């Protein structure tokens, strides 16, 4: 293993949080292996973003800038990433397991004939190789995986690897010269639609989710009200998504989104195994449910056995009171 290349995601000329996590992890892993780490930025007008990476110990940034790269393109970004990997001679490539990273990484894997381990929650140098740990079955189990091909690709689950600041580092910025043809933009993003400023459950530090115990769709605001007071996001169980109360984009569970916030409050959710799979790695879990035997209480740190519709308004008021002090 000779060099690490970390693709760091940016949108609208700004580096995403997950990007700093990946850059910082690359630096740490490179130190452990005694090799170099370089960061790749793809987009347009990224010089100031590139300068932010020194604070995370990045010594060299490869910059692929082009007005045509302003908007994300699956095919063009994959090509640039593969070219950058070849030019730099990197044989370990890290990306974030975000929508963009998950989109680019398999294409990169095929281009470089490199094994890919997706959505890692741990990555370590061990006995001359790298061992990555990742959840499978939506977190019901974990596997340890090694890559057997010469070039190795890993994507890192967001919010798991903490970025570490470094001091006194200046990063060298090298502009990459990669020629792009129109045919490289076979897939092109035309527009990004932000869902009315609502925080996504996967990005929130606090998630409040509702289920059948809310009794009626018009009671879902009880969940949203508390999420708002706590600065978190509202989620839903599969039962109420299937019933048409909530959109699938809010569903937490094995066929929905996997979340691991600091605080997860399950409101009127019994805790079917497929729901638990999507949220059980949350740091602190609170359950409010009428049924004392509901499986959600098996994994909850704190619980109230009671009617969610009665408890929620009081709970929201109590948080409001406490947080304003």
């Amino acid at each position, binding site marked *: 293993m000779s060099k690490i290349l970390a693709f760091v995601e940016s949108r609208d000329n700004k580096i995403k949080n997950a990007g700093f996590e990946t850059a910082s992890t690359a630096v740490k892993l490179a130190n452990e292996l005694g090799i170099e780490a370089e960061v790749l930025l793809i987009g347009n007008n990224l010089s100031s973003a590139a300068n932010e990476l020194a604070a995370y110990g990045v010594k060299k940034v490869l910059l692929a800038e082009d007005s045509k790269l302003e908007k994300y393109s699956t095919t063009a970004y994959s090509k640039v990433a593969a070219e950058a990997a070849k030019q730099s001679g990197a044989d370990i490539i890290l990306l974030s397991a975000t929508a963009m990273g998950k989109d680019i990484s*398999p294409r990169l894997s095929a281009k470089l004939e490199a094994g890919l381990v997706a*959505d890692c929650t741990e990555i370590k140098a061990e006995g001359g190789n790298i061992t990555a740990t990742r959840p499978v079955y939506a977190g*019901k*189990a974990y596997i340890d995986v090694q890559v057997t091909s010469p070039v190795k690709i890993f994507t890192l689950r967001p919010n798991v690897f903490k970025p570490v600041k470094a001091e006194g580092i200046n990063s060298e910025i090298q502009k990459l010269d990669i020629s792009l043809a129109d045919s490289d933009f076979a*897939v092109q993003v035309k527009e990004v639609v932000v869902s009315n400023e609502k925080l996504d459950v996967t*990005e929130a530090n606090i998630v409040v989710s509702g289920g059948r115990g809310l009794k009626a769709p018009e009671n879902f605001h009880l969940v949203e009200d508390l999420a708002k007071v706590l600065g978190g996001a509202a989620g839903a169980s599969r039962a109420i998504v299937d019933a048409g109360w909530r959109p699938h984009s809010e569903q937490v569970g094995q066929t929905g989104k996997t979340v691991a916030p600091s*605080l997860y409050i399950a409101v009127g959710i019994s805790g079917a195994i497929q729901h638990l799979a999507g949220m059980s790695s949350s740091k602190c879990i609170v359950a409010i449910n009428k049924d004392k035997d509901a499986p959600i209480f098996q994994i909850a740190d704190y619980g*109230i056995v009671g009617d969610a519709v009665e408890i929620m308004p009081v709970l929201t008021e109590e948080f409001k009171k406490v947080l304003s002090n």
Partner: protein
Amino acid sequence: MKIAVCVSQVPDTTTKVKVGSDGKTIDPAGVTYIINPYDEFAVEAALQLKEKQGGETIVVSVGKDSNKEAIKKAYAMGIEKGILVKSDSEMDSYSVARNLADVLKEVNPDIIFFGKQSIDYDDSQVGSLVAEMLNIPSINVVVSLNVEGNKITCEREIEGGKEVVESSLPAAICAQRGLNNPRYPNLKGIMAAKSKPIEERQPTYTENKTEIIGMSLPKPKPKGKIVGTDVSAVPELVKLLREEAKVI
């Protein structure tokens, strides 16, 4: 129009995972296997496109003999032809994709549908891998799609929103929940699927690029605290979250 859809067979979502005797994969005892839920959205998308534009549909799967059940489910929903690349060995996403790509090169479809991920290994790789191997565009996590002539426009989910993505055919489309409502097969479809032949093939590629060295279960949590049984427990709960758990 030639429409292909790729499916896999996975443990259903109610499965309680136990580590198998090899220490690397799950213990299959007592596990119910189903078609991968995301693949049902892919099958439905293939059928809707055929109903709109005409053409033929084909389902392809790589894996064990039991994957025939997933193909039969696709048949029962209305897919016309099926190919199983049969292999008893564990294949990683790269290897599965290479085998799919080899079959699809020959089938030469205008569009290929995948589920956005299988719910066993949650890799989210195969659709994009196949697309790159066939040198065609791929669009992931698709929640809406519109095909007009040679052009395809999709909405795909990203963190906190959607991207509107445009591409040309042939292309690989990876379906997300919400794209459609998969139809329930009727009795006639289920009966017909039972006797419909499935073409079997040998794998063309068997080398994995990743190796699982161990599987483990998450550590069990210590039993939590029941704070109370009605609204009077609320102040105590908030206090515990602030002072004990320190999450607020």
